[in-house]
Protein backbone atom coordinates (compact mmCIF):
# COMPACT_ATOMS: atom_id res chain seq x y z
CA UNK A 1 0.00 0.00 0.00
CA UNK A 2 1.36 3.39 -0.95
CA UNK A 3 1.53 5.95 1.83
CA UNK A 4 -0.87 8.82 1.43
CA UNK A 5 0.38 12.28 0.67
CA UNK A 6 -0.63 13.32 4.19
CA UNK A 7 1.57 10.56 5.61
CA UNK A 8 4.44 11.59 3.37
CA UNK A 9 4.04 15.22 4.39
CA UNK A 10 3.95 14.24 8.07
CA UNK A 11 7.06 12.10 7.65
CA UNK A 12 8.85 14.91 5.87
CA UNK A 13 7.85 17.42 8.52
CA UNK A 14 9.05 15.05 11.22
CA UNK A 15 12.40 14.73 9.46
CA UNK A 16 12.60 18.49 9.31
CA UNK A 17 11.87 18.78 13.01
CA UNK A 18 14.65 16.30 13.75
CA UNK A 19 17.17 18.14 11.61
CA UNK A 20 20.51 18.89 13.19
CA UNK A 21 21.72 22.44 13.51
CA UNK A 22 22.98 24.00 10.32
CA UNK A 23 26.46 25.19 11.13
CA UNK A 24 26.94 26.16 7.55
CA UNK A 25 29.56 28.52 6.40
CA UNK A 26 31.74 29.11 9.37
CA UNK A 27 33.58 31.83 7.52
CA UNK A 28 31.96 34.74 9.25
CA UNK A 29 30.37 37.71 7.58
CA UNK A 30 29.05 36.11 4.39
CA UNK A 31 25.30 36.01 4.93
CA UNK A 32 25.47 38.98 7.28
CA UNK A 33 27.24 40.97 4.57
CA UNK A 34 24.42 40.42 2.08
CA UNK A 35 21.70 41.19 4.61
CA UNK A 36 23.48 44.31 5.86
CA UNK A 37 24.00 45.53 2.31
CA UNK A 38 20.42 44.72 1.38
CA UNK A 39 18.96 46.53 4.37
CA UNK A 40 21.16 49.58 4.00
CA UNK A 41 19.30 51.37 1.19
CA UNK A 42 15.98 50.44 2.74
CA UNK A 43 16.91 52.00 6.07
CA UNK A 44 17.07 55.57 4.76
CA UNK A 45 13.90 57.30 3.58
CA UNK A 46 15.87 59.60 1.28
CA UNK A 47 17.23 56.59 -0.58
CA UNK A 48 13.94 54.75 -0.67
CA UNK A 49 12.00 57.68 -2.11
CA UNK A 50 14.60 58.64 -4.70
CA UNK A 51 15.05 55.08 -5.94
CA UNK A 52 11.33 54.40 -6.05
CA UNK A 53 10.93 57.69 -7.93
CA UNK A 54 13.37 56.42 -10.56
CA UNK A 55 11.07 53.45 -11.11
CA UNK A 56 7.97 55.65 -11.15
CA UNK A 57 9.50 57.97 -13.70
CA UNK A 58 10.63 55.05 -15.84
CA UNK A 59 7.09 53.66 -15.75
CA UNK A 60 5.73 57.04 -16.82
CA UNK A 61 8.21 57.40 -19.67
CA UNK A 62 7.67 53.84 -20.92
CA UNK A 63 10.10 51.81 -23.04
CA UNK A 64 13.05 52.07 -23.31
CA UNK A 65 13.39 54.41 -20.30
CA UNK A 66 11.54 51.95 -18.10
CA UNK A 67 14.55 49.66 -18.20
CA UNK A 68 17.34 52.08 -19.09
CA UNK A 69 16.85 54.19 -15.96
CA UNK A 70 16.77 51.32 -13.44
CA UNK A 71 19.84 49.76 -15.06
CA UNK A 72 21.68 53.08 -15.21
CA UNK A 73 21.09 53.98 -11.58
CA UNK A 74 22.72 50.94 -9.86
CA UNK A 75 25.76 50.97 -12.15
CA UNK A 76 26.43 54.68 -11.76
CA UNK A 77 25.62 54.44 -8.06
CA UNK A 78 28.34 51.79 -7.81
CA UNK A 79 30.67 54.23 -9.55
CA UNK A 80 29.81 56.80 -6.88
CA UNK A 81 30.57 54.21 -4.23
CA UNK A 82 33.82 53.42 -6.02
CA UNK A 83 34.80 57.09 -5.83
CA UNK A 84 33.90 57.13 -2.16
CA UNK A 85 35.99 54.05 -1.49
CA UNK A 86 38.97 55.65 -3.20
CA UNK A 87 38.54 58.67 -0.97
CA UNK A 88 37.62 61.03 -3.80
CA UNK A 89 35.75 63.87 -2.10
CA UNK A 90 32.30 64.80 -3.35
CA UNK A 91 30.98 68.07 -1.96
CA UNK A 92 27.36 68.48 -0.99
CA UNK A 93 26.45 64.81 -0.88
CA UNK A 94 23.42 65.30 1.37
CA UNK A 95 22.27 68.23 -0.74
CA UNK A 96 22.65 66.12 -3.87
CA UNK A 97 20.56 63.33 -2.36
CA UNK A 98 17.86 65.79 -1.33
CA UNK A 99 17.96 67.40 -4.78
CA UNK A 100 17.51 63.98 -6.36
CA UNK A 101 14.26 63.47 -4.49
CA UNK A 102 13.08 66.99 -5.38
CA UNK A 103 13.86 66.78 -9.10
CA UNK A 104 12.82 63.19 -9.63
CA UNK A 105 9.61 63.76 -7.66
CA UNK A 106 8.92 66.89 -9.66
CA UNK A 107 9.56 65.04 -12.91
CA UNK A 108 6.99 62.44 -11.91
CA UNK A 109 4.52 65.04 -10.71
CA UNK A 110 4.73 67.10 -13.89
CA UNK A 111 5.08 64.05 -16.16
CA UNK A 112 8.18 65.60 -17.62
CA UNK A 113 9.35 63.83 -20.81
CA UNK A 114 12.93 64.78 -21.63
CA UNK A 115 14.97 62.88 -24.24
CA UNK A 116 16.16 59.49 -23.04
CA UNK A 117 19.80 60.54 -22.77
CA UNK A 118 18.83 63.55 -20.64
CA UNK A 119 16.72 61.41 -18.30
CA UNK A 120 19.50 58.83 -18.00
CA UNK A 121 22.08 61.57 -17.39
CA UNK A 122 19.93 63.13 -14.67
CA UNK A 123 19.35 59.79 -12.94
CA UNK A 124 23.02 58.86 -13.29
CA UNK A 125 24.18 62.18 -11.91
CA UNK A 126 22.16 61.76 -8.74
CA UNK A 127 23.09 58.09 -8.43
CA UNK A 128 26.69 59.17 -7.82
CA UNK A 129 25.62 61.00 -4.66
CA UNK A 130 23.65 58.04 -3.36
CA UNK A 131 26.54 55.65 -4.00
CA UNK A 132 29.14 57.97 -2.54
CA UNK A 133 27.12 58.45 0.63
CA UNK A 134 26.00 54.95 1.38
CA UNK A 135 27.76 52.20 -0.52
CA UNK A 136 30.94 52.48 1.48
CA UNK A 137 29.72 51.64 4.95
CA UNK A 138 30.82 48.01 5.25
CA UNK A 139 30.69 46.77 8.84
CA UNK A 140 33.94 45.11 9.96
CA UNK A 141 34.26 41.40 9.29
CA UNK A 142 31.62 41.18 6.58
CA UNK A 143 32.05 40.10 2.98
CA UNK A 144 32.60 43.13 0.74
CA UNK A 145 31.25 41.30 -2.30
CA UNK A 146 28.04 40.17 -0.66
CA UNK A 147 27.55 43.54 1.02
CA UNK A 148 27.91 45.21 -2.39
CA UNK A 149 25.61 42.69 -4.03
CA UNK A 150 22.99 43.15 -1.31
CA UNK A 151 23.18 46.91 -1.64
CA UNK A 152 22.80 46.82 -5.41
CA UNK A 153 20.02 44.22 -5.38
CA UNK A 154 18.05 46.25 -2.81
CA UNK A 155 18.43 49.31 -5.00
CA UNK A 156 17.16 47.38 -7.99
CA UNK A 157 14.23 46.07 -5.96
CA UNK A 158 13.28 49.62 -4.98
CA UNK A 159 13.28 50.57 -8.65
CA UNK A 160 11.13 47.54 -9.38
CA UNK A 161 8.67 48.59 -6.68
CA UNK A 162 8.48 52.02 -8.30
CA UNK A 163 7.85 50.42 -11.70
CA UNK A 164 5.20 48.15 -10.20
CA UNK A 165 3.43 51.12 -8.62
CA UNK A 166 3.71 52.87 -11.97
CA UNK A 167 1.62 50.10 -13.50
CA UNK A 168 -1.48 51.98 -12.30
CA UNK A 169 -0.81 54.67 -14.90
CA UNK A 170 -3.23 53.37 -17.57
CA UNK A 171 -6.17 54.22 -15.30
CA UNK A 172 -7.07 57.92 -15.07
CA UNK A 173 -7.18 57.77 -11.27
CA UNK A 174 -3.91 55.91 -11.22
CA UNK A 175 -2.29 58.56 -13.36
CA UNK A 176 -3.37 61.24 -10.91
CA UNK A 177 -2.21 59.11 -7.99
CA UNK A 178 1.22 58.78 -9.60
CA UNK A 179 1.50 62.53 -9.99
CA UNK A 180 0.49 62.99 -6.36
CA UNK A 181 3.10 60.42 -5.33
CA UNK A 182 5.70 62.36 -7.31
CA UNK A 183 4.65 65.51 -5.50
CA UNK A 184 5.04 63.70 -2.20
CA UNK A 185 8.57 62.61 -3.11
CA UNK A 186 9.41 66.19 -4.08
CA UNK A 187 8.06 67.53 -0.77
CA UNK A 188 10.05 64.95 1.15
CA UNK A 189 13.09 66.06 -0.84
CA UNK A 190 12.50 69.62 0.32
CA UNK A 191 12.44 68.37 3.89
CA UNK A 192 15.72 66.50 3.32
CA UNK A 193 17.22 69.66 1.84
CA UNK A 194 16.14 71.70 4.85
CA UNK A 195 17.63 69.07 7.13
CA UNK A 196 20.89 69.09 5.14
CA UNK A 197 21.29 72.80 5.79
CA UNK A 198 19.92 72.79 9.33
Amino acid at each position, binding site marked *: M*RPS*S*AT*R*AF*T*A*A*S*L*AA*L*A*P*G*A*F*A*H*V*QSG*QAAGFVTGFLHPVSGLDHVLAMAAVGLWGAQLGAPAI*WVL*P*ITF*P*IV*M*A*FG*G*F*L*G*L*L*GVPLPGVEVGIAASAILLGTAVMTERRPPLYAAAALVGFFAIFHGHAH*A*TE*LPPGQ*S*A*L*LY*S*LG*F*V*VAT*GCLHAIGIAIGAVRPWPTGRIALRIAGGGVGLAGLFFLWRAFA
Partner: protein
Amino acid sequence: MKPRGPSAAGTIALALALALCPLPGHAHLIETGLGPVYDGITHFALTPEDLIPALALAMLAGLRGAEHARRVPFVLPVAWLLGGVAGTLAGAPALVIPAWLPLLALGGLLAADARLPPAATVAIAALLGIALGYANGYAMAQAGPGLRGVVGIAGAVFVVTTLAAACVAARQAGWIRIAWRAAGGWVAASGLLLLGWSLR
Protein backbone atom coordinates in the same frame (compact mmCIF):
# COMPACT_ATOMS: atom_id res chain seq x y z
CA MET B 1 -5.78 2.21 -12.13
CA LYS B 2 -2.97 4.54 -13.01
CA PRO B 3 -0.70 4.99 -9.98
CA ARG B 4 -0.64 8.50 -8.63
CA GLY B 5 2.62 10.34 -8.23
CA PRO B 6 3.49 12.21 -5.09
CA SER B 7 1.25 15.18 -4.45
CA ALA B 8 2.54 18.73 -4.62
CA ALA B 9 2.11 19.14 -0.87
CA GLY B 10 4.05 15.96 -0.19
CA THR B 11 6.82 16.95 -2.57
CA ILE B 12 7.11 20.42 -1.06
CA ALA B 13 7.19 18.99 2.46
CA LEU B 14 9.86 16.49 1.45
CA ALA B 15 11.91 19.21 -0.22
CA LEU B 16 11.61 21.37 2.88
CA ALA B 17 12.67 18.47 5.05
CA LEU B 18 15.72 17.87 2.87
CA ALA B 19 16.55 21.54 2.93
CA LEU B 20 16.25 21.66 6.69
CA CYS B 21 18.32 18.52 7.28
CA PRO B 22 21.76 19.92 6.56
CA LEU B 23 25.00 18.48 7.57
CA PRO B 24 27.41 21.10 8.79
CA GLY B 25 28.33 22.93 5.59
CA HIS B 26 31.73 24.25 6.48
CA ALA B 27 32.45 26.07 3.28
CA HIS B 28 35.73 27.40 2.10
CA LEU B 29 37.78 24.29 2.20
CA ILE B 30 36.52 22.94 5.51
CA GLU B 31 35.38 19.35 5.32
CA THR B 32 31.68 18.66 5.02
CA GLY B 33 32.13 15.13 6.33
CA LEU B 34 30.72 13.76 3.10
CA GLY B 35 34.02 13.41 1.27
CA PRO B 36 36.21 15.58 -0.91
CA VAL B 37 33.88 15.63 -3.92
CA TYR B 38 31.10 17.07 -1.78
CA ASP B 39 33.60 19.45 -0.21
CA GLY B 40 34.23 20.75 -3.72
CA ILE B 41 30.53 21.04 -4.52
CA THR B 42 29.89 22.87 -1.26
CA HIS B 43 32.83 25.14 -1.84
CA PHE B 44 31.51 26.21 -5.22
CA ALA B 45 27.96 26.67 -3.97
CA LEU B 46 29.05 28.85 -1.05
CA THR B 47 31.74 30.91 -2.74
CA PRO B 48 30.13 33.89 -4.49
CA GLU B 49 33.45 34.84 -6.10
CA ASP B 50 33.19 31.60 -8.11
CA LEU B 51 29.46 31.09 -8.33
CA ILE B 52 28.43 34.54 -9.57
CA PRO B 53 30.87 34.73 -12.52
CA ALA B 54 29.84 31.22 -13.60
CA LEU B 55 26.18 32.21 -13.42
CA ALA B 56 26.82 35.48 -15.24
CA LEU B 57 28.64 33.68 -18.05
CA ALA B 58 25.87 31.10 -18.34
CA MET B 59 23.28 33.89 -18.48
CA LEU B 60 25.31 35.74 -21.09
CA ALA B 61 25.47 32.58 -23.20
CA GLY B 62 21.76 31.95 -22.70
CA LEU B 63 20.95 35.50 -23.72
CA ARG B 64 22.82 35.01 -26.99
CA GLY B 65 20.80 31.92 -27.87
CA ALA B 66 20.94 28.16 -27.94
CA GLU B 67 24.20 27.91 -29.88
CA HIS B 68 26.09 29.76 -27.16
CA ALA B 69 24.11 28.17 -24.36
CA ARG B 70 25.00 24.68 -25.52
CA ARG B 71 28.75 25.32 -25.57
CA VAL B 72 29.38 27.05 -22.25
CA PRO B 73 28.17 24.20 -20.00
CA PHE B 74 30.77 21.95 -21.60
CA VAL B 75 33.67 24.34 -22.11
CA LEU B 76 33.55 26.01 -18.70
CA PRO B 77 33.60 22.85 -16.52
CA VAL B 78 36.31 21.21 -18.67
CA ALA B 79 38.44 24.35 -18.48
CA TRP B 80 37.73 24.56 -14.75
CA LEU B 81 38.83 20.95 -14.35
CA LEU B 82 42.01 21.47 -16.39
CA GLY B 83 42.84 24.63 -14.44
CA GLY B 84 42.08 22.76 -11.24
CA VAL B 85 44.42 19.94 -12.13
CA ALA B 86 47.16 22.45 -12.93
CA GLY B 87 46.49 24.26 -9.66
CA THR B 88 46.54 21.04 -7.71
CA LEU B 89 49.91 20.10 -9.20
CA ALA B 90 51.37 23.59 -8.92
CA GLY B 91 53.18 24.76 -5.87
CA ALA B 92 52.44 28.45 -6.15
CA PRO B 93 49.23 30.49 -6.41
CA ALA B 94 49.83 31.82 -9.91
CA LEU B 95 47.06 32.73 -12.37
CA VAL B 96 45.05 34.43 -9.65
CA ILE B 97 42.65 36.96 -11.10
CA PRO B 98 41.07 39.59 -8.84
CA ALA B 99 37.51 38.74 -7.86
CA TRP B 100 36.13 42.03 -9.19
CA LEU B 101 37.38 41.48 -12.74
CA PRO B 102 35.06 38.68 -13.93
CA LEU B 103 32.12 40.30 -12.14
CA LEU B 104 32.68 43.65 -13.80
CA ALA B 105 33.47 42.20 -17.23
CA LEU B 106 30.77 39.54 -17.43
CA GLY B 107 28.14 41.70 -15.72
CA GLY B 108 28.93 44.52 -18.11
CA LEU B 109 28.65 42.26 -21.15
CA LEU B 110 25.37 40.87 -19.86
CA ALA B 111 23.91 44.29 -19.10
CA ALA B 112 24.99 45.60 -22.49
CA ASP B 113 23.54 42.52 -24.22
CA ALA B 114 26.85 42.26 -26.06
CA ARG B 115 26.52 40.45 -29.37
CA LEU B 116 29.54 38.20 -29.09
CA PRO B 117 30.28 35.50 -31.64
CA PRO B 118 30.18 31.93 -30.29
CA ALA B 119 33.97 31.70 -30.47
CA ALA B 120 34.30 34.67 -28.14
CA THR B 121 31.88 33.14 -25.62
CA VAL B 122 33.85 29.91 -25.74
CA ALA B 123 37.13 31.78 -25.28
CA ILE B 124 35.76 33.66 -22.27
CA ALA B 125 34.51 30.40 -20.79
CA ALA B 126 37.90 28.76 -21.28
CA LEU B 127 39.79 31.67 -19.73
CA LEU B 128 37.41 31.99 -16.80
CA GLY B 129 37.41 28.26 -16.15
CA ILE B 130 41.18 27.94 -16.25
CA ALA B 131 41.74 30.97 -14.02
CA LEU B 132 39.15 30.14 -11.36
CA GLY B 133 39.85 26.41 -11.60
CA TYR B 134 43.55 27.00 -11.03
CA ALA B 135 42.84 29.01 -7.88
CA ASN B 136 40.41 26.35 -6.68
CA GLY B 137 42.86 23.54 -7.42
CA TYR B 138 45.68 25.21 -5.58
CA ALA B 139 43.46 25.90 -2.58
CA MET B 140 42.03 22.37 -2.63
CA ALA B 141 45.53 20.88 -2.68
CA GLN B 142 46.51 23.01 0.29
CA ALA B 143 43.38 22.22 2.27
CA GLY B 144 43.17 18.48 1.69
CA PRO B 145 40.38 17.58 -0.75
CA GLY B 146 42.84 17.81 -3.66
CA LEU B 147 41.88 16.67 -7.13
CA ARG B 148 38.66 15.00 -6.03
CA GLY B 149 37.51 18.32 -4.66
CA VAL B 150 38.20 19.88 -8.04
CA VAL B 151 36.11 17.16 -9.68
CA GLY B 152 33.25 18.08 -7.36
CA ILE B 153 33.61 21.74 -8.26
CA ALA B 154 33.66 20.99 -12.00
CA GLY B 155 30.53 18.86 -11.63
CA ALA B 156 28.78 21.65 -9.76
CA VAL B 157 29.88 24.14 -12.41
CA PHE B 158 28.38 21.91 -15.11
CA VAL B 159 25.03 21.58 -13.33
CA VAL B 160 24.72 25.26 -12.45
CA THR B 161 25.76 26.59 -15.85
CA THR B 162 23.56 24.11 -17.71
CA LEU B 163 20.50 25.07 -15.70
CA ALA B 164 21.19 28.81 -15.86
CA ALA B 165 22.01 28.88 -19.58
CA ALA B 166 18.98 26.75 -20.44
CA CYS B 167 16.70 28.86 -18.26
CA VAL B 168 17.83 32.12 -19.85
CA ALA B 169 17.85 30.73 -23.40
CA ALA B 170 14.31 29.45 -23.00
CA ARG B 171 12.87 32.57 -21.39
CA GLN B 172 13.56 35.77 -23.24
CA ALA B 173 10.17 37.17 -24.08
CA GLY B 174 9.63 40.85 -23.39
CA TRP B 175 10.29 41.78 -19.81
CA ILE B 176 12.22 38.66 -18.93
CA ARG B 177 15.08 39.57 -21.24
CA ILE B 178 15.26 42.96 -19.57
CA ALA B 179 15.36 41.26 -16.19
CA TRP B 180 18.40 39.20 -17.25
CA ARG B 181 20.14 42.36 -18.37
CA ALA B 182 19.24 44.14 -15.15
CA ALA B 183 20.78 41.23 -13.25
CA GLY B 184 23.92 41.74 -15.32
CA GLY B 185 23.93 45.38 -14.33
CA TRP B 186 23.73 44.37 -10.69
CA VAL B 187 26.67 41.99 -11.09
CA ALA B 188 28.73 44.68 -12.83
CA ALA B 189 27.86 47.22 -10.13
CA SER B 190 28.90 44.77 -7.43
CA GLY B 191 32.17 44.16 -9.27
CA LEU B 192 32.83 47.89 -9.45
CA LEU B 193 32.22 48.28 -5.73
CA LEU B 194 34.45 45.28 -5.03
CA LEU B 195 37.19 46.96 -7.06
CA GLY B 196 36.78 49.97 -4.79
CA TRP B 197 37.04 47.81 -1.70
CA SER B 198 40.19 46.16 -3.04
CA LEU B 199 41.83 49.52 -3.71
CA ARG B 200 40.81 51.03 -0.41
